[in-house]
């Protein structure tokens, strides 16, 4: 059952909760509404459920082509799972699950035997067999969440809606349930829409991620698309771990020391870099520190493994007499470098003229660094502080001694 959200506008008095939202949720997909609090994601979910209604005349909600905008929640055939489960405290697990069936009009209600069977099936599905007679207060958080899910599924909904399903659970349980939910979704194939503020959760679970902010949709796409090509600075920052303070100042954290950076230019529409200017006097002590820091961090692939920060730093050194500067010279022997000139053509390091600009690649402990040389003044650190790095597009083949030709990846490709 696909969901089509068309031009939904919702205000509470003067407050705009949803500003002309349109969205397609394909049949059978698992879609995440991701955003900070106040972005409107929960309101949108509740409007899809029928617990709230959009401003009159503002838009439509279609389930598989059928207009359900005016249909009340009870008749829409949605299964809703609340953040705090909303289980019926005075009923057993079995009674909770059968509630939707018990309140059905006699004509539509399945026979008692069938109801019992459905309950047993559902309990097996959510791995809570044998707990029919328990009461909610006798269950753990994760178990309660699964009962809530089973209860929502008992009425055979066309669409499953989850409001921050794992928000109230601790980290370990959250991770387990996340994995379980994905498997579960793959098994039953029900169109699912869930709300979360946790980007890791959204990127890991969803087929389609909808990033929302301030009552608008910022970007929609697969997790890979959104991560690789964030369309706005907000999406980029929300998904990554940009070193930005809430008041807008950027900083670079080196071995525990915070260095405030001025004149930060964030380039919108670009892929993934922030250009930061560092005050000159901060520099001389930095090189070693950055190297140390880089040594400590691991390369990780977002979503697959635990992500640590990877600082891929590029900074300008001075090239004097055709040799690497003092700092680089220190590293000589440990690192190998390859140089490329302005035209992205490989050049011999020894032929580089002092004060000229070239790209230098430095490899250190398996990580590659780009050092741009602009002359005698340290000017810019190009820092991509993110939860991941893409090894394939990184130049890994360039060895100073080797003179090996680049194989498939041109390092110029990844430089913006």
């Amino acid at each position, binding site marked *: 059952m696909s969901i089509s959200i068309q031009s939904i506008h919702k205000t509470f008095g003067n407050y705009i909760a949803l500003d002309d939202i349109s969205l397609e949720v394909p049949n059978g997909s698992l879609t995440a509404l991701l955003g900070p609090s106040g972005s409107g994601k929960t309101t949108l979910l509740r409007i899809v459920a029928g617990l709230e209604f959009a401003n009159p005349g503002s838009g439509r909600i279609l389930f598989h082509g059928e207009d359900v905008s005016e249909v009340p929640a009870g008749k829409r055939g*949605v299964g809703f799972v*609340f953040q705090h489960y909303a289980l019926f*405290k005075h009923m057993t697990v079995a009674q909770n699950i059968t*509630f939707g069936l018990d*309140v059905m009009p006699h004509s539509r209600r399945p026979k008692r035997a069938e109801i019992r069977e459905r309950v047993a099936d559902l309990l097996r599905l959510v791995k809570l067999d044998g707990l029919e007679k328990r009461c*909610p207060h006798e269950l753990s958080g994760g178990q309660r969440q699964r009962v809530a899910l089973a*209860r929502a599924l008992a009425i055979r909904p066309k669409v499953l809606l989850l409001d921050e399903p794992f928000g109230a659970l601790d980290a370990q349980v959250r991770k387990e349930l996340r994995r379980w939910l994905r498997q579960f979704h793959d098994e039953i194939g029900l169109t699912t829409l869930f709300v979360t503020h946790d980007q890791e959760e959204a990127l890991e679970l969803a087929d389609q991620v909808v990033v929302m902010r301030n009552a608008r949709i910022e970007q929609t796409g697969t997790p890979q698309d959104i991560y690789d090509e964030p369309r706005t600075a907000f999406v980029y920052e929300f998904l990554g771990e940009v070193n930005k303070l809430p008041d807008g100042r950027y900083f670079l954290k080196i071995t525990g020391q915070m260095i405030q950076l001025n004149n930060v230019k964030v380039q919108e529409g670009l892929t993934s870099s922030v250009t930061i200017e560092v005050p000159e006097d901060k520099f001389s002590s930095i090189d070693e520190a950055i190297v140390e820091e880089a040594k400590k961090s691991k390369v990780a692939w977002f979503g697959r493994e635990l992500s640590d920060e990877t600082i891929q730093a590029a900074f300008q050194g001075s090239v004097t007499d055709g040799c690497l500067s003092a700092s680089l010279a220190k590293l000589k022997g440990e690192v190998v470098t390859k140089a490329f000139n302005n035209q992205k053509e490989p050049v011999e390091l020894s032929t580089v003229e002092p004060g000229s600009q070239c790209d230098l690649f430095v490899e250190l402990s398996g990580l590659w660094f780009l050092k741009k040389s602009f002359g005698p003044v340290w000017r810019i650190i190009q820092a991509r502080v993110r939860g991941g790095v893409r090894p394939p597009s990184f130049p890994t083949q360039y060895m100073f001694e080797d003179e090996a030709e680049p194989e498939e990846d041109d390092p110029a490709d990844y430089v913006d």
Partner: protein
Amino acid sequence: MRPVTTESAPVRWLLISLAVLTLVLFLLLPLLAVFVEAFRRGAEVFFASLHEEAALSAVRLTLIAAAVAVPLNTLFGLAAAWLVTKFRFRGRALLVSLIDLPFAVSPVIAGLVWVLLFGARGWFGPWLAAHDFKIIFALPGIIVATVFVTFPFVARELIPLMEAQGSDQEQAAVTLGARGWQIFRRVTLPNIKWGLLYGVLLCNARAMGEFGAVSVVSGHIRGKTNTLPLHIEVLYNEYQFSAAFACATLLALLALVTLGLKSAVEHFTHHQAARHK
């Protein structure tokens, strides 16, 4: 080492002694005095006072007033609490304040307003006289006054309870296809049952014990419009002390029963709250 949140032993004993002293002085002694005075002239007089025609009539009247007021106000309280806690609408705050009105108003005024409305020279007086329907100085007046003063009890008990419980469970029930009455019966009611009982208990205690408002509207017609509290006052004014106290023991017993049931409810509420943590 004692826990940080308690006082030292001497302070604790002092506070406990003070509390016990207050309890004894203001509660136990008067209660004891009622029973002592009631039996001062012997058990025979005691039982005779209770069997007297006027006394029986007073008891009957009290029971009728309570039998009408309590269910009415329970229904009203449930409806008001449901409305106020599950819905947001303009004037909600005003409604909540109005519900508390009978509490704020002096019982004498609470009775007087009805006299002003329905009395012989009241707004509806002539109309009522024309239709030969008596409210003031008759049973309907007593009932009206009792309903008015016990108005808020159930609502005041339920509103904070239902606010605290939130409407999540009701919303869940909505998404599962339940309709209004089903939601109320299956979801809301079981969650509020102890609070409801508590409110009903208090409502009943006040309905049976109300004096001021009923006194103004009843007219004190012996055997016809005297509730038990009024009858006690009449007896006392006629210097029939033992009889007065004998009837007072009935009210005292009512108080004791109410307190007992109240404790039981509190016990079950804590039990339920602890279970649901």
